[in-house]
Structures are given as structure tokens and as C-alpha cells.
């Protein structure tokens, strides 16, 4: 209890502190804004996030060596965490720009909305920077509570409230499991610090109580990334949420869940007997991965609602990503494992975040107050009325399906080839490839609708002219094509951001 907190600790954690501070600024601006002097909150929070990304980029270049032991060993600042910071802030930036037009179109109240988006982003950043379960839980809860509120923020809309209450109940149960698991681990090891637990895990890994605690923690994390037995909340919450928030959830919340899953597997689960021993974590995860991608894809095939289809598609992508996580976990030599298999996972999460926000951005863009166009049927003939929206949607769908000139293709290629290097994963990779082929069908369905069917009605309606929305969508398309054509440098960033050898 003789903690030393240095002034430099605050410099190391500057990106987090900046986002929290900016969130307070945005909330204050919302409170002071009146009908006469209306503050444009969306661009204001986007500006803050853009500055935040710059600070994070500076921080990334400074932290070639991870800074540990900050705030009495509560926080770690390494390139892995900063890489995810950038993903979260980019997702939040896109979301706040997309929300501007959406909120105006649907007559939302803006007050509070942007501030909570920023605080959710801050919660995710605290979570990936946590070196201790105590800090991890509080960051996770900050994120979760903010997301529950954002899902429910469409006041008076039944789907919003319904999705939020289902998400809240299941999420709160998952948090209780997480906390109970942490309590058991604390009881057995006498610590909540990830590094200390990792050291003790080598001797305790065959103790049932320790394993049960870890099982509870893993179940809670599986809930957050929506792996198959814990995925039930996803379609309802995704459908009920305001569309820009759905994109934020698919991109950032999922990435945050995988970030802590990777950190947990990279540290606590590194004990070989935990991975390969009687409990056989790796085998359990292999089955979960195969189930997740198959169930997600099969249900996505049957959806007529585009938001639900994308929700199930996000479940199947979680299955693919988990495959990469397993590939990392099954290499006994930790340094080599991180180098070969973790980079592709980070790369995949990065491009998936951009693509999925883009896809939900199109749904945001073409939806009007009187015609939300959430059903696939209403997309027919869109190419003639909204040519740019149709073109951008085609790019996003091709990237989600993993078709060559886009980022999604390379992400899948790297991920599957990393998995193929592990003996015993061949059959899962075959299932994954088979699933990718199936998924092409439902990803191309909206494209076929848009280009090869004539508009059934005259309810064309211009897309709401929000320059911010158009900017975000154009940027997302450009990023996807740029990553697809020149994948080497983003992949190099991802490779440089892997966790240090455990």
C-alpha cells in the first residue's frame, strides 16, 4: 500500500484523459446550448476525437516499449492498447458524424447523446489499458452502461426500449458472472492484478476453483463479443438501437471485447496447462468458433431486415476472429504466437470496424423519417435513385463478404493462413471458408436488389443531405479500397502493435 503515482502517469494516459475531458466539455456545451444559440454537438465531439486520434498516434510512436506499473500497476500503456484506442476513437468519430443527420431527421434530442458516445469510448479505452481486473471491470461497466443508454435513447420508440431492456438484463447478468469469477480468482490468488495472477496461474492452473473462476470470466467475455451460446441479445439490441449506434456497437464494442479476450489469453491463460491441460480451453474455443460462424451465417440468410441481417453477420465475423485468437493461443512459444497470429486478428478488427460502420452508415443515410427502408424489399432500384449510396453499399458488402479488391479479402486471407499454420485447425478453416462462401449469397442480395430490380414505388426521396454523413461514407469507402489495394502498411502497424511476449 505504498503506491507511488507519478506525474508522468498522467502523460502516459493522456489519450484517455483527453477523451473524458472532451466528453465533459460536450456535455457542458449541450447544457448551455439553447434554441437561439445552438451548439453543433456532432462536429464538436468529432473534432475532439480527431485530436484524440492524433494524441494516440503520438503516444503509439512513444511507446515502442510498454509502460507498465502506472497508477500503482492499474494501467498499462502499450502499442496493443493504443492501437485499439485508435479503433474506438475512429468508430466514435464516424458515429458522431453519422448521428448528426440521423438525429435531426428523426427529431431526437441531442442533449446527452454525444457526451455518452464519448464516455462509452473512454470506457473502452480504460478497459483495454487495464492491467488489473478492478480497473478492467469499471471500464467495462462504463462502456456497457453508456451503450445500454444509447440503445434506449430513441425515446418513445418501442423497438429501442425493447432492445435495450433485453440487452441490459443479459449484460447485467454477464457482469455479475464476471465479478463472481474475479472474486473467486481473487480468493485463490490473493490478487486482482493480471501480471500477479499470471505468475500464480502456473502453479494454480489445475485447481478447480481457479479454473471455475476463469470459466466465469471467459463466459462473460464471450457474451460481450456475442459468441454463440451467448449471442441471443445481439439481433434485438442491434435492431432496436438507433442505426449509427448499431454501427458503433458492431465496430467498437466487439473490438473492445476481443481486445480484453486477447489480453486475458495473452497473460492469464498463457500457462500451458491451462491451454492444453485437462480443461482443454483451446478445444472448447474451437467448437465455439465453428458454431458461432455457422449459426450467424445461417440466421443471416433468413433475415429480411437489413439491420438484423448485419447483426447476424457480425456474429459470424466474431467466429472468424475467434479462429485467429485460437491460432494465437495454441502456439506454445508466446513471442512467436503473438508475431504470427495476433497481427492478422488486429488487422481484421480494424478493417471490420470501418466496413461495418460504413454499412450501417448507408442504412442511416437513405433512411427517412417516413420511410426508414430497413427491409430489404424497399431497397429495390436504389441504384437508379441513389447511385452513390448503392455504389458505396456494394463496396461495403464486398468487403464483408471478403471479395478481392477490398480490405475484407486480405483480412480473411491473413487470418485463415495464420490459422492454417497450426496443426489441427484445418477442419475449422475449411468450415470458415465454406461459411464465407455461403455469406456471399446474403451479402450480394442487397446489391442485386439495388442494381437489378426496378423501383417498386415512387417513394424515392432524396437521401438526407448531410455533408457529415457523406464525408464519413466517402472516407470509409476510400479506406477500405486503400487497405485492399495496399495492405502492407496497415498490416505492418497491426504487427507492430501485438502484445509483447508473455
Amino acid at each position, binding site marked *: 500500500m505504498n503506491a507511488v503515482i507519478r506525474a508522468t502517469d498522467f502523460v502516459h494516459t493522456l489519450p484517455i484523459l483527453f477523451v473524458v475531458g472532451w466528453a465533459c466539455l460536450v456535455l457542458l456545451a449541450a447544457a448551455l446550448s439553447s434554441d437561439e444559440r445552438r451548439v453543433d454537438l456532432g462536429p464538436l465531439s468529432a473534432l475532439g476525437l480527431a485530436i484524440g486520434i492524433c494524441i494516440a498516434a503520438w503516444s503509439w510512436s512513444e511507446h515502442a516499449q510498454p509502460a507498465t506499473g502506472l497508477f500503482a500497476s*492499474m494501467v498499462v500503456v502499450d502499442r496493443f492498447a493504443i492501437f485499439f484506442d485508435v479503433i474506438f476513437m475512429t468508430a466514435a468519430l464516424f458515429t458522431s458524424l453519422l448521428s448528426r443527420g440521423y438525429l435531426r431527421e428523426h427529431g431526437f434530442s441531442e442533449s446527452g447523446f454525444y457526451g455518452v458516445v464519448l464516455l462509452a469510448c473512454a470506457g473502452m479505452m480504460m478497459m483495454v489499458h487495464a492491467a488489473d481486473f478492478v480497473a478492467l471491470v469499471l471500464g467495462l461497466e462504463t462502456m456497457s452502461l453508456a451503450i445500454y443508454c444509447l440503445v434506449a435513447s430513441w425515446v418513445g420508440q418501442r423497438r429501442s426500449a425493447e432492445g435495450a431492456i433485453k440487452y441490459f438484463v443479459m449484460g447485467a447478468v454477464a457482469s455479475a458472472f464476471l465479478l463472481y469469477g474475479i472474486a473467486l480468482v481473487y480468493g485463490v490468488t490473493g490478487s486482482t492484478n493480471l501480471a500477479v495472477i499470471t505468475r500464480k496461474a502456473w502453479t494454480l492452473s489445475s485447481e478447480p476453483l481457479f479454473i471455475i473462476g476463469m470459466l466465469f470470466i471467459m463466459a462473460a467475455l464471450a457474451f460481450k463479443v456475442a459468441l454463440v451460446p451467448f449471442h441471443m441479445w445481439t439481433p434485438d439490441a442491434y435492431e432496436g438501437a438507433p442505426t449509427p449506434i448499431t454501427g458503433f456497437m458492431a465496430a467498437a464494442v466487439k473490438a473492445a471485447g476481443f481486445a480484453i479476450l486477447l489480453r486475458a489469453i495473452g497473460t492469464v491463460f498463457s500457462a500451458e496447462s491451462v491451454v492444453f491441460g485437462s480443461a482443454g480451453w483451446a478445444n472448447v474455443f474451437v467448437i465455439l468458433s465453428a458454431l458461432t460462424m455457422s449459426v450467424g451465417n445461417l440466421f443471416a440468410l433468413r433475415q429480411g431486415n437489413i439491420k438484423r441481417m448485419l447483426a447476424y453477420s457480425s456474429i459470424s465475423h466474431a467466429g472468424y476472429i475467434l479462429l485467429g485468437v485460437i491460432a494465437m493461443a495454441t502456439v506454445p512459444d508466446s513471442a512467436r504466437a503473438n508475431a504470427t497470429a495476433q497481427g492478422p486478428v488486429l488487422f481484421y478488427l480494424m478493417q471490420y470496424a470501418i466496413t461495418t460502420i460504413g454499412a450501417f452508415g448507408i442504412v442511416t443515410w437513405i433512411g427517412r423519417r417516413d420511410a426508414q427502408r430497413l427491409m430489404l424489399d424497399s431497397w429495390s432500384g436504389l441504384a437508379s435513385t441513389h447511385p452513390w449510396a448503392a455504389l458505396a453499399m456494394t463496396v461495403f458488402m464486398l468487403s464483408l463478404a471478403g471479395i478481392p479488391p477490398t480490405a475484407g479479402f486480405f483480412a480473411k486471407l491473413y487470418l485463415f493462413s495464420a490459422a492454417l499454420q497450426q496443426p489441427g485447425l484445418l477442419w475449422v478453416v475449411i468450415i470458415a471458408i465454406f461459411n464465407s462462401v455461403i455469406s456471399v449469397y446474403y451479402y450480394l442480395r442487397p446489391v442485386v436488389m439495388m442494381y437489378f430490380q426496378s423501383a417498386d414505388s415512387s417513394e424515392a426521396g432524396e437521401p438526407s443531405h448531410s455533408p457529415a454523413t457523406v464525408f464519413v461514407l466517402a472516407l470509409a469507402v476510400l479506406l477500405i479500397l486503400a487497405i485492399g489495394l495496399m495492405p502492407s502498411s496497415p498490416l505492418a502497424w497491426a504487427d507492430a502493435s501485438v502484445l509483447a511476449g508473455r
Partner: protein
Amino acid sequence: MSFPRFTKHAGLLSVLLLLAIGGTAFAQDATLVRAEQGNGLLWVFRVFAVLMLATAALTISVRNAVVAALCLVGTLISTGVLFLLLHASFLAAIQVLVYAGAIMVLFVFVVMSVGDADEHEIGISSGLISKILGLAALIGVLFVVLPQFKSQIVPQAAPLADTSDFGSLKPIGRLLFSDYLFPFEVLSVLLLVAIVGAVMVSRRRSADETVDQGGAQ
């Protein structure tokens, strides 16, 4: 809520609450004299553990939400007593003040404002598979985990010195502002989210917002 049923439960509940409050006072005396050697404290523990579980079982089984809330208060106060027995005097105070006081007032307030929350039946009717899975998991957890608590790996308590300030305000306060400074500050962000979010979600719809669209696209 139907009035007669409420009064019936209220009688039972007031007895439980009185027991809990009386027990709190007794346990406090007992911890003050630190009569650790005797079996007396063990019996106090057993009584309040049973009381806690009984009120918890009532919470999830009564039909009326107000009665459930009162049962939950009983559970929380009994837990506070257990905290005292485990030398967590600060947490016991927090438990009664924050949980049994503030959170439960919030609950009762919402129950009252939302109104009659009677449900028609208790049973497995929707999401049958998930409910069965949940129950199976529950039974599995109980059967797998419970025996482990008697194992060697569970640490056992050593007697505390009379001068020990374990569990009092001083060491916890010191901890919160040194080792736990970062989580403590994150907690402030968490509470900010809760305040802003709760206001955002529960406000009334303003005039120009879209009304509910039911099945519209």
C-alpha cells in the same frame, strides 16, 4: 396490488425486519467485545445466513414487486450483519446506507410510479430452450462449485489482534486514494454515465420526435 395479500406479507416482513435490525445491534456488540473463541458468533452467522437466504428466496418468488422490494431490504440488511461478523464494519455501514437505503428507495419509487406490476403466472413459457439451458447451468454450477469451497485451497481466517483496524474506514480510505486511485476515478466517470444516461433515457418525448411507428419500415 391487491390489498389483503399485501397486508399478509407485510406482517411476516415486519417480523423479519425487526429480527434483522435487532440482530444488527446484537452482532455489533458481539464484534465489539470480539468474543471470537465462543460458538456464539457462529450461531449468529448461521441465523443471519438463513434469514438472508430466506428473504432472497422470497424476493424472487412473491408476486408483488413492492413485497419483493421489502424482502430484498431484509436480504441486504442480513448481508450487512454478515459483513460485521466478517470484520468488514465499513462495508456493513455502506451496505445499509447505500444498498438498503438509497438503491431500494429508488426501486420502491419506480415500482410505485410504474404502478401495478402484477404478473399473471410464473412459469416457463417464452424462450423455453434458453430457460432450460439456464437452469441446467445453474444446477451444474451449484454441483460443481459448492464442494470446492471445502477444499484446501480456500484460505482460512486467522484471528485478528485486538488493535487491528482491519475493515475500518482508515485502511480502505488510504487504499482508495493510493492503489485504487485509478479505479476510483473511473468510478466517477461511471457515475457520470449513469446520471446523464438515466436522464437521457427516461425523459419524456418532445413534441417533434417521431412517434412510435409499430411495424412501419
